């Protein structure tokens, strides 16, 4: 059996079994829709555009949040990585802030920004800034000491050193950190939408659940899975191109 075929066998069997049990009346149709109904609801949502709108809203908030976390995380990560003083001063405080679950900030973000994109992006930003900062700092640690000596010999300012030498050398590893952050961004965005924010895919599922449209809810659930898987796959391919451009040994997980 072909390699890819093997992986699909179990899901297909599970779906077929689900369908049969549902039609036989064994599974309650109000709460566990038939796969065929779910599929139909999904197609309908696709064609009437509602799925695209929700997907766009979720991705938008995730993207903005991700940008915020990159703009904050990379410079700070570089600074901490390059300057031991900065590390001793700031790192302990960051270590203290990191264990705060991002979702705990939802009410705070809601308080400050009210409903909408900003609030969601803020929570995403907080969640994603840590993996990016950590990846950046770790990447700086791998920069060869010789490059630093050269920079010192040329009397480069810390800023110039960071920009001209460290950043290009670490770009590959930072890209990996960004990939991890993207996964987190999507998860957090959907979570915020489920809990409070009335926009996006998460909110769509809540609406479906409250209107007792279980088929639509499951359709969106599966759609979210696909989006996550698709984005992840896209980034992995992007990572390969970035890494090959900068001549870094790939396969960084």
């Amino acid at each position, binding site marked *: 059996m072909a390699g890819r075929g093997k992986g699909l066998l179990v899901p297909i069997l599970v779906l077929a079994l689900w369908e049969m049990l549902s039609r036989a009346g064994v599974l309650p149709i109000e709460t566990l829709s038939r796969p065929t109904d779910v599929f139909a609801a999904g197609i309908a949502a696709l064609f009437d555009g509602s799925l695209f709108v929700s997907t766009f809203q979720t991705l938008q908030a995730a993207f903005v949040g991700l940008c915020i976390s990159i703009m904050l995380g990379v410079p700070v990560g570089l600074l901490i990585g390059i300057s031991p003083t900065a590390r001793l001063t700031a790192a302990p405080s960051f270590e203290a802030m990191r264990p705060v679950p991002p979702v705990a900030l939802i009410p705070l973000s809601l308080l400050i920004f009210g409903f909408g994109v900003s609030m969601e992006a803020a929570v995403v930003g907080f969640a994603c800034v840590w993996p990016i900062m950590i990846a950046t700092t770790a990447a700086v640690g791998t920069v060869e000491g010789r490059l630093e000596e050269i920079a010192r010999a040329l009397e480069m300012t810390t800023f110039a050193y960071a920009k001209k030498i460290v950043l290009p050398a670490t770009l590959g590893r930072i890209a990996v950190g960004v990939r991890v952050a993207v996964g987190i961004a999507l998860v957090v965005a959907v979570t915020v939408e489920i*809990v409070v924010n009335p926009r996006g895919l998460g909110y769509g599922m809540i609406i479906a659940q409250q209107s007792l449209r279980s088929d639509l809810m499951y359709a969106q659930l599966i759609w979210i899975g696909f989006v996550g898987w698709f984005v992840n796959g896209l980034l992995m391919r992007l990572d390969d191109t970035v890494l090959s451009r900068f001549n870094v040994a790939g396969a960084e997980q």
Partner: protein
Amino acid sequence: MKRAVLALIFPLLLLGAWQLAASGSLLSPAYFPAPSRTFEALYQSIISGSLWSPLSATAVRMLEGWVLASLLGILLGSFIGSSRLGREFLQPSLEFLRPFPASAIIPAAIMLLGLSNQMAIFVIAFGSVWPVLLGTLHGFSAIEPRLKEVASTLEMRPIHYLFKMAIPSALPDIFTGIRISLAIALILAVVVEMQAAQPGLGQNILLAQRMFRSPELYAGIIVLGVFGLFANRSLNVIEMYFLNWKDQR
């Protein structure tokens, strides 16, 4: 000593500046209360005892879901990981589910189990099982083949092989999975409380927001952060005990 001073300068300066700005009405007290008010709210909740009930509710919920998920994950992961057939047929599906947002299961869970504590435990366990499952799976699939040959030469019974060779060999990967699981369990516990109005710290914070009581809001966040840190460190200690052979070089 110098390190401690440096480490404290940053947060103290920040808090000091915040305090001044708040007192001088530069920051809106509704959104950015003075740190003194936040710490007072925190202090009050500790001595009045009103902190412990929601904290323990959240902690217990998190632990129940996490322990369930870990046991299930290790069990399933070892079964699937030990069988080459199992890996070939199931691993692709499991890898597909890896980036899946665990919180997305909440609407479905509410539909199936209603707004109950069972639903909460189910959601927490469901979301936390994947890292453990995948970690165990990876650990089992990476067992040194030479060890299997040693086991067969010693005529070791399969059950002994499982407990004396397979699981210890996979333990580092299992612990990695458990650690990630713990973080997810805490997040889901808080989310579920906010979503399903279950008593706990998550609900407290949300209520504080609705009533515009920002010091309580910040205090709740701090408590969650401290608890998360404590849980993580505790797990580290346990991990160190089991994996102490790794540092002996």
